[in-house]
């Protein structure tokens, strides 16, 4: 299983711990990550707000690079996933838009042909590797660790072109449970983390994050697990940020947040490096050592 590894901007710059866990876990499951040379930003949906054609053309440039490599894209970022997947679908289905974008791409000697597929990490783990193989790779199961799964909006938003109604959510639940953990039910599971509002209105972003964290706390979760780098920042660092923007009435937030790849890596019996443990703003040591779990 070979994939064009699309890292995007955020993960290599801010979340090397996520990238490193994927690089450690992938070979164990027979996944070969082929670096994508010269890939640009995905481009995210904020760019679509400014200009739809620019968004399509820039995303299409990345798709063309993968087409030249002759392999499907694997991306770790929900935002990149949605952007690349939607562009791939729109350009495949709409000849008029495809011709317009190809006219732009001709200036950089590229042409979109629609030959590859865009996959998220959980697509690859669930559909290509298979749940059974993931389950069999687990050497140190989590024995019922209570996990609040945070799939993130962008994983499920392409549902109209890819996943079923909430399939993205249930797939991640199943993958989490393959590690021996328990994916618990909680209110607002499908709700946004608040991240898209960060930098636009930090107070509202913190309020949205707080509502989610309160629901997770009420469900007695031991940790949060996500595949989205934006949700990760919002819910990890967000636990410290909340008190800067909202007057709290004695509430305390101390819920560790892990990337799914980190959870799987630990369950496979691999240890996180010190720098990776320190990358988490809310300490994760209690998750790493089952004896410290409540």
């Amino acid at each position, binding site marked *: 299983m070979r994939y064009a590894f699309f890292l995007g*901007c955020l993960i290599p*710059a*801010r979340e090397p711990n996520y990238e490193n866990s994927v690089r450690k876990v992938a070979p164990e499951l027979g996944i070969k990550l082929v670096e994508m040379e010269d*890939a640009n930003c995905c481009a995210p949906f904020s760019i679509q707000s*400014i200009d739809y054609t620019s968004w399509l053309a820039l995303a299409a*440039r990345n798709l063309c690079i993968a087409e030249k490599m002759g392999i499907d894209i694997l991306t770790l970022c929900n935002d990149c996933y949605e952007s690349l997947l939607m562009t791939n679908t729109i350009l495949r289905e709409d000849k008029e838009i495809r011709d317009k974008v190809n006219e732009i791409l001709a200036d950089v000697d590229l042409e979109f042909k629609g030959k590859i597929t865009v996959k998220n990490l959980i697509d690859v783990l669930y559909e290509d590797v298979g749940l059974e193989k993931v389950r069999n790779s687990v050497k140190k199961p989590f024995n019922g660790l209570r996990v609040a799964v945070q799939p993130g909006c962008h994983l499920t938003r392409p549902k109209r072109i890819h996943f079923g109604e909430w399939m993205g959510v249930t797939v991640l639940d199943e993958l989490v449970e393959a590690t021996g953990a328990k994916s618990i039910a909680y209110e607002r599971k499908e709700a*946004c983390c608040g991240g*898209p509002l960060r930098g*636009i209105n930090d107070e509202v972003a913190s309020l949205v994050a707080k509502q989610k964290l309160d629901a997770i706390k009420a469900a007695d979760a031991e940790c949060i697990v996500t595949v989205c780098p934006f949700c990760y920042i919002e819910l990890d660092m967000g636990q410290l940020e909340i008190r800067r923007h909202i007057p709290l009435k004695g509430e305390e937030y101390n819920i560790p947040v892990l990337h799914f790849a980190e959870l799987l890596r630990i369950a496979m019996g691999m240890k996180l490096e010190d*720098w990776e443990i320190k990358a988490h703003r809310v300490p994760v040591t209690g998750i790493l050592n089952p004896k410290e779990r409540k």
Partner: protein
Amino acid sequence: MGEAMFTIRNLAVAEGNTPKGILVQAQSLFETGRVVTPSKMALTNRKKYGLGKEPAVDVKDVQKILRKTSFDELIYRGSQSK
């Protein structure tokens, strides 16, 4: 909720109220080919952690595309609006 935020953001930009954060992202995309650029420390750490260099981007090609779509003018207009 993501859909609602996205729609509101589109409306705000269409009305000439582009949030500053989005303009900063757009400018960075035009200048570097990335919306988020790594700090010097992040690049040093990548090497230290054995992750290698961050993959390079041919900014000239990105800029060719964005000039053809007049994206640079849209950023300028956005920065001049209310």
